[in-house]
């Protein structure tokens, strides 16, 4: 199994898609809940597996293009088939996933193997009938959106009009129409005329969930810009600019690096945005630009270890963050296969671990604690014992239920609320 690089539920939560470093997409489907076993809620089983992207070679630059799937985004379901967008560093693809459980039989002009019959041999006419067959789930690429990004694509976002979507790389954001693959509109371009002057890159971007003219993008300097596409064709001037003033007492050479935003997500309501930087998760009210309304410490005990984390490159890890369906709880990952949840109403938080050694299937997860000071209690783990190679970068929350998917390197964990 390969390292999982993205996880995403579809809009109903029936399907869960994962993309991995090898360019594969695996889709899980939730079992129908059966009345015979009401205590056993629908589990997720593999529904479809396909190779989305292959490794490529850019001959002009003599560089490999990785097939790693950076993001998957589902389209809302409009017919029996499912559609999703998957992207690697350079190319976005629209995939159609459909079921086939019937097969037509009894054609007049061709026989069962598909070979054409000699018309002169046909003496009787019959009506073809559909006969059941074993369920087959097939994935077909319907569109390939290529050659529009010089830099590495970090985000894709489907617009609420369901006709367009955007793809963002380090310096540019492009707007696409699903039907048109050979053109895209450039809506944001922050590339300086002289590349030597480059000091800031785009790190994530997302459309507003309801307003199809609004989107946000985050930067490596810890700022978020909200843009309105009605204002101009090229949205270089932001409508809103979100930035928290720096805390002078916490200033260090690593201040900028840890302020770089790795993920930005609108709340389901569209009223808030959540950003993840290296040590914190912040919730911003769209109506207040000068500071976030909430700040949650994910793993502040790493603040004194920043130099070592810079040395081993961990400081550049890009953690994602997610809202639950009602926007009351937010979740993000950490190291040592830990992930954290913050309840915005009660202000309580919990640290949980995604690992097979420390929890059996169906057992309730035990809260974990990292010990900061001198005395370490029995169940606590000290900062120096944390395994920094076990990082949880990608998580997803079911749109309406308390089911979460957590990707721990090459393992996928699915957790549910306990049912009594």
């Amino acid at each position, binding site marked *: 199994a390969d390292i999982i690089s993205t996880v995403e539920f579809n809009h109903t939560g029936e399907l869960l898609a994962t993309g991995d470093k090898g360019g594969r997409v695996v889709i899980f489907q939730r079992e129908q809940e059966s009345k015979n076993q009401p205590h056993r809620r629908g589990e997720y089983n593999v529904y479809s597996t396909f190779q989305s992207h292959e490794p490529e070679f850019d*001959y*002009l*630059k*003599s*560089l*490999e293009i*990785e097939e790693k799937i950076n993001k998957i985004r589902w389209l809302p379901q409009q017919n029996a088939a499912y559609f999703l967008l998957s992207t690697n*560093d350079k190319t976005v693809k629209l995939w159609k996933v459909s079921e086939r459980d019937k097969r037509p039989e009894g054609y007049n002009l061709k026989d069962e193997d598909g070979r054409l019959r000699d018309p002169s041999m046909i003496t009787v006419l019959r009506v073809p009938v559909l006969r059941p067959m074993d369920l087959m789930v097939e994935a077909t690429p319907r569109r390939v959106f*290529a*050659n529009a990004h*010089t*830099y*590495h694509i970090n985000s894709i976002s489907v617009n609420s009009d369901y006709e367009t979507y955007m793809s963002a790389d*380090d*310096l540019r954001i492009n707007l696409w129409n699903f039907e048109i693959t050979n053109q895209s509109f450039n809506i944001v371009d922050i590339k300086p005329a*002289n*590349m*030597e002057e*480059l*000091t*800031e*890159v785009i*790190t994530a971007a997302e459309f507003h969930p309801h307003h199809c003219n609004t989107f946000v993008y985050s930067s*490596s300097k810890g700022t978020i810009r909200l843009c309105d596409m009605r204002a101009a064709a090229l949205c270089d001037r932001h409508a809103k600019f979100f930035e928290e003033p720096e805390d002078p*007492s*916490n*200033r*260090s*050479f*690593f201040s*900028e*690096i840890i302020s*770089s935003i790795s993920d930005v997500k609108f709340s389901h309501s569209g009223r808030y945005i959540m950003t993840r930087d290296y040590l914190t998760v912040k919730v911003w009210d769209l109506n207040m630009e000068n500071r976030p309304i909430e700040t949650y410490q994910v793993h502040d005990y790493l603040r*004194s*270890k*920043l*130099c*070592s984390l*810079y*040395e*081993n*490159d*961990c400081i*550049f890890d890009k953690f994602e963050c997610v809202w639950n369906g009602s926007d009351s709880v937010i979740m993000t990952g950490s190291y040592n296969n830990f992930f954290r949840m913050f309840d915005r109403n009660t202000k309580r938080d919990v640290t949980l671990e995604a690992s097979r050694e420390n929890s059996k299937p169906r057992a309730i997860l035990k809260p974990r604690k990292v010990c900061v000071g001198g005395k370490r209690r029995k169940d606590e783990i000290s900062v*120096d014992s*944390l*395994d*920094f*190679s076990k990082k949880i970068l990608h998580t997803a929350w079911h749109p309406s239920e308390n089911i979460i998917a957590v990707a721990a390197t090459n393992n996928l964990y699915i957790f549910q609320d306990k049912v009594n």
Partner: protein
Amino acid sequence: MFVRGLKRKCFDGEEDIEGTLAGIKAIPSYNLQRQSLLDMSLVKLQLCHMLVEPNLCRSVLIANTVRQIQEEMTQDGTWQMINTQSTGQASLDRLVSTDILCRSSRDQSEGKHLPAYGAFSKDFESDQTQDSSETMSTASSVQTPRNLQSNVWEMENPQENKGNFQKSLDQIFETLENKTPNSVEDLFSEVDNSYYDLDTMLTGMMSNTKVGHCDSLETFSSPTNTASNSNCKSDLNDLDHIVEILVES
């Protein structure tokens, strides 16, 4: 990845740089730590990513950190300008010593860069024992970041480079050391959309814009260009097809 028990050159825990910034600095220790951070950042920037394009965000953040350190060192007065000759010598030594640090990103993740970094700092440490060491090591770090910044983003018009002999000197050294034409483009070179313009393409091919204006560099670049172009497969788009025709003719 997080190697424990390694003698760290960094300033974690008690010797927090945050703490030292606020109060009176213990001058030698702070400078040493800052220098070590600068060296580490330069090493990170210079490491070759031979096959895959380096992460632009990471490179920008590291470069900004380097710039920050430089600015502070300039304000402190520890940033000294030395004459060209000695600087050239110093940068050559430093670049040669970083040769072993030039590994692919895969080697990095296997932790091999840590002992390599140890070797790098050993080089730095041996400098320290000499009398003029302080000046020398500061000088060489002066030279490398300044040239790095100009090299690191993009190789633009050759006209810009012509004015600066030292810059081109370092370009040669870096190329010779790395021995791959890819790195000549440095970390942030990109093919502009304008590059696909027929005229720009022809001009670029003729004057070897990508590799600069030194004769010795052309021998490195041309074999790769022709080799890779002859390998072009059928999934080229129109523009790539044009490139193929141009090069083969």
